[in-house]
């Protein structure tokens, strides 16, 4: 349960949502246990459900919060990014949040939670190579998003 909750929390950023996702994952797993054929490990199967549930929840929540985000963006543009938040962690968090869903999921699973590409591939139903490629693109996008901060940090 720890790994499922941790992953859900990393992806959603909220305890209530992470608990919802963990609960839903286990309820679905219990209901579908009869259909589990044992082709993969139980943990892999559980993570596949967890990722699917969490991404679905996130999509719903994102739709609801879109208006709030738009308002935030306007404020940021008016104040200027450089002066809005000089803290790398906060900037990084925002940049990760802004990544496309696929990149973000792979990045969080690999670089934040330490899953292997094999585990990510099994959980997302993609090839290991796809996971590696998405991670590489996610990192590139983050570097790009934080380029101005990198310059400041090095100077």
């Amino acid at each position, binding site marked *: *349960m*720890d790994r499922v*909750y*941790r992953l859900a*929390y*990393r*992806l*959603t*950023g909220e*305890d209530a949502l*992470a*608990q919802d996702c*963990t*609960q839903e994952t*286990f*309820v679905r797993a*219990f*209901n579908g246990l*009869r259909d589990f054929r044992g082709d993969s490990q139980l943990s892999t199967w559980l993570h596949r459900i967890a990722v699917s549930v969490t991404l679905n929840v996130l999509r719903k929540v994102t739709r609801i919060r879109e208006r709030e985000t738009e308002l935030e963006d306007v404020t940021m543009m008016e104040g200027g990014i450089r002066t809005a938040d000089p803290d*790398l*962690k906060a900037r*990084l*968090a925002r940049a*990760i949040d802004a990544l496309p869903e696929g990149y973000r999921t792979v990045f*969080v699973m690999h*670089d*934040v939670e330490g899953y292997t590409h094999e585990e990510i591939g099994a959980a997302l139903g993609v090839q290991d190579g796809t996971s590696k490629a998405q991670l590489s693109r996610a*990192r590139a996008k*983050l*570097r790009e998003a*934080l380029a101005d901060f*990198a310059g400041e*940090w*090095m100077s």
Partner: protein
Amino acid sequence: MIDDQFDEQLRDAVRDYHRPPETPRDAIWARIEAARQEQQAPVVPIRRLPRRLAWGVGIAATLAIGVAIGRYSVARTPVSEPQVASGTTAPVESATRPTAVTNSTREPAGTPAAPSLAYRMATIEHFTRTEALLTTLRADAQSGRADPSVDAWARDLLGTTRMLLDSPAARDPQMAALLNDLELVLAQIAALPRTHERTTDIDLINDAVRQHAVLTRLRMAIPAGSIRVGT
């Protein structure tokens, strides 16, 4: 060099991204337990209804559905529908009608109450198949077996029963009563749980079948010499 140093800084910073607290295991397990109980909750009161009341509720529901279907059918039947001279050529079944009766002859508007030969044959075949299922269920109960395939079998028969109820075959009150009883029995078989309570539920269904003399009435409705269907 700059990239490497920056990446290292990133790797450190990334560990704090949505850093989770300690997993609230007890709270989550309690929620999972509650959710699972909630999922099972609707089944329990129905199963514990007194048998007579359960039949009453089922019959009331069937009547409500029947009335609704009847009104819908009357509203859709055109007054000037072309009449068909013989039973060998029939107008094409409307696309909105259930597909399982599309091969049989449609009763033209304004025909006498007696259903056509095609409906009678379809009903008899259906009764034969239903009798086979109920006999299997009774034999299973007596031998202590619980064949899981009866659920799908009952679902298939339930669909046909409902279509016959909505057809001229149900114009005969006795036939309609039998079809209504069959609908209830088949609905209960189709919803049999796959838990240890399955055997108890099968016993209850067999009791109901016996009380309402469903098998006897089925056999009486099947003329002697009809083709016996194994499934």
